[in-house]
């Protein structure tokens, strides 16, 4: 499998090769080298489906990936669903095609929009997405980064009911709560109940409402100018058909002597893969064949980075507000830290416990680079005195024992200082946060840990 992708230079026949290789260095094979590793490792993709029950989400997912993820599903009746809350259910499937392995995770949200009172029914979903970001953030900041599991949600297919006149209030609120956390792809479900003109009107209506409410759905990236016309044409058509009107089916029916996947009605057969009947093919091509990688990139580069920046800023602002935090583990401003993450925090604490001497660090810090104006003041909008790092450094002294100077850095996790001279560990609450404290009374007190 890999030899096909990897360029092996057969330098065995020098005479023949020399002409050919005269101007040829050979790093054009670099993309292949890159992909060889990825193909070996395999890819992963997490897809979330959200929408009311009965809109055909499971059927669509089965149709997209040609599997049956929901074999043993029990559908609840109305009575049982009265007190149901929104759950998050994950299904994982390993698919292999032409030597490429994909670990597909489908995150299902049964119960969404089903209750009588649907206020904030999207909260479990936003919490789930945030948890995945948080876990990745911790893993990324940790010491062992070799095998980070990426469970972040790469795309959310949101199903809009075709029976209304556009977006309903719950649709709008859901999308507004999630559009900055995940790539939302809105779909019109069960599109076989609408005739083409109705579909057109509904799409226009939905597009207008999305603009009106300022919802940022996933935008298809622009084509390169050097792509061929056919590709550009396809790209244009794709953008104009959003939101996609889809129909799902995994049953094969007979139509005009041909076997197609579709739905059989007395008045005709709806073919799932017929572009004139619905946008299923467009959705599948977009999701799998052309934009899968881009969806992952936008999740990593935009949504995750936003989360991370917010997280860090929240942590620093929280610690500046409460001037004296006695607790060793800073409280992270996240809604539901479950026992998993608590365990993780404890584990990381154990990992990191070995205490090392600060002396060499002190010498390093006295070099020029670090005795500059502290950037934090700029952020907090405070005046910047010169060679000012933090309460510890103001008078030119540091820790009474070893003279440790603040590094001018933020330490969100374990603000501890181990003094090799006093032989004790101190807790630096603001000391490590580089807070300007002109009043000596407010300088961080060294609290024995």
């Amino acid at each position, binding site marked *: 499998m890999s030899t096909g992708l990897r360029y092996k230079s057969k330098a065995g026949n020098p005479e023949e090769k020399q002409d050919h290789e005269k101007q040829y260095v050979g790093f054009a094979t670099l993309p292949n080298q890159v992909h060889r590793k990825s193909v070996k490792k395999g890819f992963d993709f997490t897809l979330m489906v959200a929408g009311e029950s009965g809109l055909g989400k499971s059927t669509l997912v089965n149709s997209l990936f040609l599997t049956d993820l929901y074999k043993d599903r029990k559908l609840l009746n109305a009575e049982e669903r009265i007190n149901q809350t929104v759950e998050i259910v*994950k*299904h994982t499937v390993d*698919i292999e095609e032409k030597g490429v392995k994909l670990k597909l995770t489908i995150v299902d949200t049964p119960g969404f929009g089903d209750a009588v009172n649907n206020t904030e029914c999207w909260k479990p979903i936003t919490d789930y997405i945030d948890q995945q970001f948080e876990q990745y953030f911790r893993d990324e900041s940790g*010491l062992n980064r070799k095998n980070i599991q990426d469970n972040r949600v790469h795309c959310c297919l949101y199903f809009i009911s075709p029976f209304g006149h556009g977006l309903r209030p719950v649709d709008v609120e859901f999308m507004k709560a999630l559009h900055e956390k995940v790539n939302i792809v809105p779909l019109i479900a069960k599109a076989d109940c609408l005739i083409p003109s109705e579909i057109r009107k509904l799409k226009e209506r939905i597009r207008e409402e999305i603009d009106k409410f300022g919802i940022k759905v996933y935008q298809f990236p622009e084509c390169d100018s050097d792509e061929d016309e056919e590709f550009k044409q396809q790209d244009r058509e794709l953008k104009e058909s959003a939101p996609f009107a889809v129909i799902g089916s995994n049953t094969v029916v007979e139509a005009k002597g041909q076997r197609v996947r579709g739905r059989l009605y007395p008045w005709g057969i709806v073919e799932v893969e017929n572009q004139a009947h619905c946008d299923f093919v467009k959705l599948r091509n977009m999701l799998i064949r052309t934009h899968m990688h881009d969806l992952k990139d936008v999740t990593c580069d935009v949504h995750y980075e936003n989360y991370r920046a917010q997280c860090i800023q929240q942590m620093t602002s929280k610690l500046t507000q409460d001037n004296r935090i006695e607790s060793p583990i800073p409280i992270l401003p996240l809604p539901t830290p479950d026992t998993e993450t608590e365990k993780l925090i404890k584990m990381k604490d154990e990992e990191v416990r070995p205490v090392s001497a600060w002396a060499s*660090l002190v010498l390093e810090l006295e070099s020029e680079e670090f005795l500059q104006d502290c950037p934090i003041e700029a952020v907090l909008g405070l005046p910047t005195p010169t060679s000012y790092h933090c309460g510890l450094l103001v008078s030119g002294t540091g820790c009474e024992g070893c003279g440790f100077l603040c590094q001018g850095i*933020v330490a969100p996790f374990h*603000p501890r200082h181990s003094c090799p001279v006093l032989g004790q560990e101190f807790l630096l609450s603001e000391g490590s946060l580089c807070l300007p404290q002109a009043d000596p009374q407010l300088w961080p007190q060294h609290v024995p840990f």
Partner: protein
Amino acid sequence: MSELVPEPRQKPVVPMKPVGINANLLGYIGIDTIIEQMRKKTMKTGFDFNIMVVGQSGLGKSTLVNTLFKSQVSRKSSGWNREEKIPKTVEIKAIGHVIEEGGVKMKLTVIDTPGFGDQINNENCWEPIEKYINEQYEKFLKEEVNIARKKRIPDTRVHCCLYFISPTGHSLRPLDLEFMKHLSKVVNIIPVIAKADTMTLEEKTEFKQRVRKELEVNGIEFYPQKEFDEDLEDKTENDKIRQESMPFAVVGSDKEYQVNGKRVLGRKTPWGIIEVENLTHCEFALLRDFVIRTHLQDLKEVTHNIHYETYRAKRLNDNGGLPPMTVETEENHESNL
């Protein structure tokens, strides 16, 4: 979480009319196209590669690098003349070029180390080099830990270090051993026997064997390191390279001559023309294929996943587990470094 591992072709769940499964219809999802998607993306963003050359002056470092990349990426020094003083410490000179081939753009940076091993007292002459390498790791770490991170952090870390061994024919010199001992832990070192046209075939094989033995005895792990072989396929391939071909005995040249009606790169001597790309003459082609055509990406990955992570872990541990974060806004990006 239910885990199912189905084959890609499935029976339909509820057949409405009695029909069989048409494998062609239900066949193709299209997952393998993700490779094409990735490829397009990487072609657009381009690659960067940083290669460092270390060795005494006059061993043909710049010529070799120019020959490797078939362009003038490194300026040859004409030696120290009487007016110029030999620098007291090893200098580090990094020159960047963008070269393109087959639609693939590469930003190549050649890091030269003039002055290495040229003094009378060469103690600790590897320290500026080690410092430079660690500084690049530090730069990358700071970028990574920033609040507002750049999408593609500029990678100035040294991916590969070609160490030039003088073709004495006897064994490695103490300076060579010291350098490689210190630096094989922080960067990928590829030892290269320079000016190999001064040795006959037998002398070459003997010398290589001796060098390999010495490296092994001293516990110096050069690239490809044994411990980082990921699977059997890699291991067998790399074993072959490690035990037979390395260190590569190379000859560099940027002049062309006519041989048998073809123009080849070579060195013209009264007794014949040494063809650089001829495998029977020297191992330049092997080195080039190894570094560029098969292991370029692997060099970068080992640097990122292993050497850089080691550095990062050490930094975090030294800080007592604190990731060295700086709170910077967009405007203050360039501060503190």
